[in-house]
């Protein structure tokens, strides 16, 4: 229940933040990496650091993460296939993987795992369309129903909670 409330808070917090639609979309894109790829991996530490350090919507990042976790689970067979194809079925890439695998630190990213590589490549390819789509959707939302939602009692109740104040610290 708390997670659901946090998600709704994230959603409205992000949609009605003062950040631009580009910042919000970028945050969601970075969050989608956290959701789509297996979480406990070195590249996600870098993504998280980028989400915190770059001037993008942190709330959007949390929203993207929460939204894409179920897709990550659902699409795991596809990621496995992509990773398997790239790692084992494309001989032209073998020298690259061999070189990376024998380079310090790089193997700690688990790039040689089919699901990790497949999901990362998918998230990377998906990033640009997701960014454009999200930016367009936020613009549409803000010019259509956004203002009315902002005046609603539901929105006021949501934004009045303490949790909302905590992550307001990270809003752009």
């Amino acid at each position, binding site marked *: 229940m708390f997670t659901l409330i946090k998600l709704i808070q994230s959603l409205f917090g992000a949609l009605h933040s003062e950040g631009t639609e580009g910042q919000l979309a970028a945050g969601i894109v970075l969050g989608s990496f956290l959701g789509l790829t297996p979480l406990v991996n070195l590249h996600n530490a870098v993504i998280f650091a980028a989400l915190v350090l770059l001037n993008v919507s942190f709330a959007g990042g949390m929203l993207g993460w929460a939204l894409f976790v179920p897709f990550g689970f659902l699409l795991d067979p596809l*990621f496995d296939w992509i990773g*398997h194809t790239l790692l*084992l079925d494309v001989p032209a890439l*073998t020298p690259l993987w061999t070189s990376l*695998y024998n380079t310090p630190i790089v193997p700690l990213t688990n790039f040689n*795992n*089919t*699901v*990790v590589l*497949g999901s990362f490549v998918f998230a990377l390819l998906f990033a640009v369309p997701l960014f454009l789509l999200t930016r367009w959707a936020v613009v549409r939302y803000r010019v259509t129903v956004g203002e009315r939602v902002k005046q609603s009692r539901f929105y006021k109740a949501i934004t009045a909670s303490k949790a909302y104040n905590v992550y307001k610290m990270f809003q752009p």
Partner: protein
Amino acid sequence: MKVKIFRWRAVGPLLLLFVIAGILWWLFADTIARRESQKVGTQILGARVEIQKLHLDLRHGKVLIGGLTIASPHEAFKNLLQADELVADIDVVPLTEKKLIINRIAANGLRFGTPRATDGRVAATSGDGIAGRVLAETREWASQFQIPVLQLATGKLSIDSLDPRRLSTIPAATALGARADSSRRAWQTGFDSLHLGPTLDSASAALDRLKRARATDLATINEARQTIDRLKRARDRVTTLDRNVKTGVSQLQAGLAGLDSARQRDYAFARSLLKFPSLDAPEIGAAVFGPGAIKPFERVLYYAQLARRYMPPGLLPRAATGPSRARRAGEDVRFPKERSMPAFLLRSAELSFLLHPASAQPQRYAGRLTGLTSDPALYGRPTAFEASGPQLAAGALANHVRAIPVDTAGASVGGVTLPAFQVPGVPLTLDPGAATTQLGFTLNGDTIRGRFAIRSTNVRWTRDSGFTNSTIGSLIWSAVSGISNLDVEARLSGPLHHPDLAVRSNLDQAIASRLRAVLGEQVAAAEKQIHDRVDALINDKVGPVRARVTEVQNQAQAQIAQQRTRIDELQKGLEQRLRQLLGGVRLP
């Protein structure tokens, strides 16, 4: 307006977060490493690996493991080994490449085959991962040696139902019937194409005319000569057809003989459905000791195959099951590179262990393992193991350096008290007592060779309580109960997928002669019964086909003989009359 790219005020919280994460790792590194080691070990071996204590001392490159227990992948409540303490010296730098290089392990207090409270098998119960697949493969491999045993519990020989579709005589008979029909058609066509009717009719007419002719009737005489030539040509054609018919008949005869062979095969197949082995001594040995003798080979093969999966030859990328997690595990692909470190290498392990730990004077042994690596081609040397001590000599070599891997193992252990076991199919329990066990095993590519032997001089026999009043039980008991020596040898050789297993023991002859005496009549009766069943199923098909073949060949041969006789008669009549008319004078 200038757009800010960085959120500088977040640097502090982020650093704090990383510091907290670092502290947490430092605090829980031992626990994390212990759990990961347990998880990876369990996944690799297909049996539960438990570690009581693990301490990482990365500054000095040391790992201390206390209370290691590895369950047996094959036996539910038994451990493969336990170790009191393991101290490992590791190279820290390769860890940045996720490579584990252990220079030396000192293992103390190793114990083998200790009991455990819970079922530690993982591969056997789940069937997952490489270990699960290898275990399933080796079980499948071992199952080919299952030998039917005597069902002495009831003293009856049971016969499985006989499926007519599995008998080879019936389709052979059907095919032969079709061949007979087609031969009949072919011969009839050949016979018709001879056109003998007009030739014989004209010859008959010519003979009549010749009988009425005089010596000066030159036209009739010439006509008679031409008719004789036509008859000769007709006989040649008949001879050719006769040759074809004879060939066809011999083929049909061969088909009939084939039916007899098929019937013998069906008898043999039906006999295989009988639940008893041959009563020959070597097969008795296989039936009695085979199931037990194949187990050591199955287990060694399991570890050899596991080693081949985890230590494959060559430098090609290789995939293994990924780490277990909430998300799909996927596969971890390794990319070995020439002149680089292998992903895992244990240069040397010094082992110190006890045998008979429960006895008053446990015996201490020492062993050494070298060159255990995930990439033998990179390390360039085979993995070797040796152990020695009082009444023990063991060694193993896994040479996966070249394209065709060769795995060998040999051990001789004396004074080991083997558990008593129920002799399959015989109402006896055999307690080998303290025996000398020898095992030799070589897996060279896909060719397997193995030898397993047990020798004991103080065997004890126990008679099953359920057979105290059984005649068979009494006879076999009287045959073997006085034998105190046991000498069993199992030999395995041939291609891995289907090797030959030969088991012999000093008990074979004794048991075989007793069984033959007791069961000979019963076996003969059962064999007759199964023969009758086979005959009942195939006679309905074979009888008519046999009759049809006989009829076809008789008909063809009779037809040819009849025509040939007619030709001969006419030719003879013409020639006789010509001689009478001409009186020996040859006309031009």
